[in-house]
């Protein structure tokens, strides 16, 4: 229940209190809320950040340049806001004409004045007491019309009134008691709100569901693992498809000209490949879906019969560019399997393999077919039931869920990477699946201590890499001592913003050279997507801090194999920055 609903007039009165009127030139930006249309999502105004990666293409790029590489020294905090939640904060501030919507762990949405930090309303979904899952986080709300959409951990999609935070409708797309949950940001196109389900460690069968944005009715549901008789089912044996995984926990990208969404899928389940012989379509793949019907019009499987927990849930970034001298309608994906994949969108929706290049140490793929992109595996680095081996990159991959970014001004593609990191892992005989219980086939104790360090780890593990896609070459890299779980924002001010390290640093680099220009030490580690927006002529940079989920787990694994214990404090905060000359009046106004 929203606070506005709970306290009625009182909450409304607070939202337009004299304090709120004093600090912002717009009294309450909700009074003139600007509905989000598909046209606006296709061509977002530079001053807004309307979806979790800024645009349909997944660029994480802001065209604003008031804050730039020449004046970044003057970037200062303007306001902050404590979310009241522990665990991993991963979502960006999403901003529509001065109204910010932020989601947090525990299924909370907070609406704020994006200029002043004044709270406008907050909402928290009531979740079943017994629900627990491995990734209590959220990666951002979706905006459409006058509604705000939240994919909740009880596998229900919630539509909120953007002005009040009151529930408009709730549609459940799966059964949380059977291990399904949701953490991703919804993708919205053609009036459909599309969400996917997590739960790959619980023996689920993944799917993507489209829900009518207005009515909450389910329009279509497309499973990522085919049932017998469906195309791709020949790549499964017996009943393995029923628990085949292929979870979808990151929002897709979208080609609005084609009307096609591109979704990445998780690994097959359970983890060991011998438990599900075959290629296991469409796990570890990118799927092209017609958003009106849900029909799969194309796919590319990055690697078959996964053995390494290498989810490929990050969708490919849509970039049209000249690749090694040839114009392509590109799909670019830095794979968890350690390979930078270049694919091409075809007119009929199918996906063509173009190129592949390892961007971190990778000892599993012996070759990649130059025509199909299909890899061959080194059995010495392929685990199985009763077969423990080492492999690189680690089970968290060259890059996990953390989004890349593309800057059309520099022409560079930025990857938050883990280098010099490997795993040792093997499976044990599976006990029968119990609904809602872990169904992995690898002992938890082994997962917690899986990390093995490769040569070079003593120097660094985390990296931000910048790639010139046209040449297929890495241009620069910025090193971080230990992990990097930092999603990337890049701007027309020739800047790259990112956190991700266990020292709580949120940093700005020169997007052209990788030189560090600025940093801020937050109250907790920064694993959320940064964003940028403008209100009343002031450009803002915003990011949530709040360490948890897999960053925290990797820290635990590091502490288990390295000779140290690192404490990263938890607790979520929204941090907002602007240039000092712009920030000062706002800070002074809020003090009065």
């Amino acid at each position, binding site marked *: 229940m929203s606070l506005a609903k709970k306290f009625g007039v009182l909450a409304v009165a607070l939202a337009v209190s004299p304090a709120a009127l004093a600090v912002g030139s717009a009294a309450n930006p909700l009074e003139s809320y600007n509905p989000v249309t598909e046209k606006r999502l296709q061509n977002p105004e530079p001053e807004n950040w309307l979806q979790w990666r800024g645009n349909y293409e997944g660029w994480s790029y802001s065209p604003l340049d008031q804050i730039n590489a020449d004046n970044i020294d003057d970037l200062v905090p303007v306001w902050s806001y404590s979310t009241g939640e522990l665990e991993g904060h991963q979502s960006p501030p999403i901003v529509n004409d001065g109204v910010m919507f932020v989601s947090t762990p525990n299924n909370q949405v907070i609406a704020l004045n994006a200029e002043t930090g004044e709270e406008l309303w907050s909402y928290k979904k009531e979740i079943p007491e017994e629900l*627990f899952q491995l990734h209590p986080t959220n990666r951002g709300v979706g905006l459409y019309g006058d509604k705000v959409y939240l994919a909740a951990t009880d596998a229900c999609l919630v539509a909120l009134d953007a002005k009040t935070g009151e529930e408009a409708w709730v549609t459940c797309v799966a059964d949380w008691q059977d291990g399904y949950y949701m953490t991703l940001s919804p993708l919205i196109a053609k009036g459909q709100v599309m969400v996917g389900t997590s739960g790959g460690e619980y023996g689920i069968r993944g799917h993507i569901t489209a829900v009518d944005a207005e009515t909450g009715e389910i329009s279509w549901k497309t499973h990522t693992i085919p049932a017998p008789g469906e195309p791709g089912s020949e790549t499964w044996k017996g009943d393995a498809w029923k628990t085949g995984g292929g979870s979808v926990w990151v929002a897709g990208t979208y080609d609005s000209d084609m009307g096609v969404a591109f979704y990445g899928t998780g690994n097959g389940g359970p983890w060991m490949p011998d438990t599900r012989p075959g290629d296991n379509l469409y796990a570890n793949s990118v799927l092209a879906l017609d958003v009106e019907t849900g029909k799969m019009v194309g796919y590319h499987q990055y690697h078959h019969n996964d053995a390494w927990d290498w989810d490929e849930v990050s969708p490919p970034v849509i970039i049209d560019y000249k690749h090694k001298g040839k114009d392509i309608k590109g799909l670019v994906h830095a794979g968890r399997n350690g390979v930078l994949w270049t694919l091409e969108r075809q007119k009929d929706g199918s996906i063509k393999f173009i190129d592949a290049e390892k961007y971190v140490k990778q000892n599993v793929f012996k070759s990649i077919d130059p025509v199909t992109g299909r890899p061959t595996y080194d059995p010495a680095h392929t685990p199985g039931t009763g077969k423990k081996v080492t492999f690189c990159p680690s089970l968290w991959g060259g890059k996990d869920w953390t989004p890349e970014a593309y800057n059309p001004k520099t022409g560079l593609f930025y990857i938050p990477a883990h280098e010099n990191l490997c795993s040792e892992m093997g499976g044990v005989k599976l006990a029968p699946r119990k609904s809602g219980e872990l169904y992995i086939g690898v002992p938890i104790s082994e997962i917690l201590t899986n990390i093995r360090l490769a040569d070079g780890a003593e120097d660094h593990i985390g990296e931000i890499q910048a790639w010139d896609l046209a040449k297929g070459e890495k241009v620069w890299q910025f090193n971080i001592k230990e992990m990097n779980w930092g999603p990337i924002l890049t701007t027309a001010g020739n800047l790259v913003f990112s956190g991700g390290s266990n020292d709580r640093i949120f940093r700005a680099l020169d997007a052209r050279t990788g030189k560090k220009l600025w940093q801020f030490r937050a109250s907790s580690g920064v694993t959320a997507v940064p964003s940028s927006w403008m209100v009343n002529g002031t450009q803002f940079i915003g990011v949530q801090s709040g360490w948890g989920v897999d960053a925290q787990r990797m820290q635990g694994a590091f502490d288990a194999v390295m000779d140290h214990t690192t404490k990263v404090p938890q607790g979520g905060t929204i941090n907002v920055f602007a240039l000092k000359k712009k920030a000062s009046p706002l800070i002074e106004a809020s003090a009065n």
Partner: protein
Amino acid sequence: MTVSKVERRNFMKSCAGACALALGATEGLSSRAEAAAKKPSLMRPQIGDRLVIEDGHGNARAISASELILEAQQVLAFPQCPKTGVIRSGSRFNKVMVMRLDPALMDEATKKNSADGVVAYSAICTHQGCDVNSFIEDKKEFFCFCHYSRFDPYKAGKVTTGPASRRLGMLPIRIEEDLIVVESGFTRKPGFKR
């Protein structure tokens, strides 16, 4: 060793009355009326329930005390109504860890709720509700894989390493004909605060 095949749906039908009447000093239920309104499979452990290993498909095996080896990995179990056979696995908050310890090393609270060295603890982490399903042998501590909280089984589930701040609840037990039987309700509400 007792092996029973249980068709859970049938048991739920037949057990509705009997198990409601069997309600004793059950922790976590505010009233008898509230408890009676619950399905038997959802009810917290009842006095006289026995602890069984369940495979998720209605197959249950009663745990015998004599099969438990000193300080060996904990066994995950659920309570089962002996009269009806209903396994109370409808609520994961009923999941318990069963283990044999050295009585000489137990503190008084642990000893009070144990039987012949056997203890039963809530398997739900008090931090964020993950399953506590690991045991660190050299430290003799229960371990939660989600956030690495640790609990001392010899000190009534006391937290030894956070982030959890609340100890695990114990399920007091007795041994009857080598079976592990519930003596009373959980010593504290299982679960966590969101």
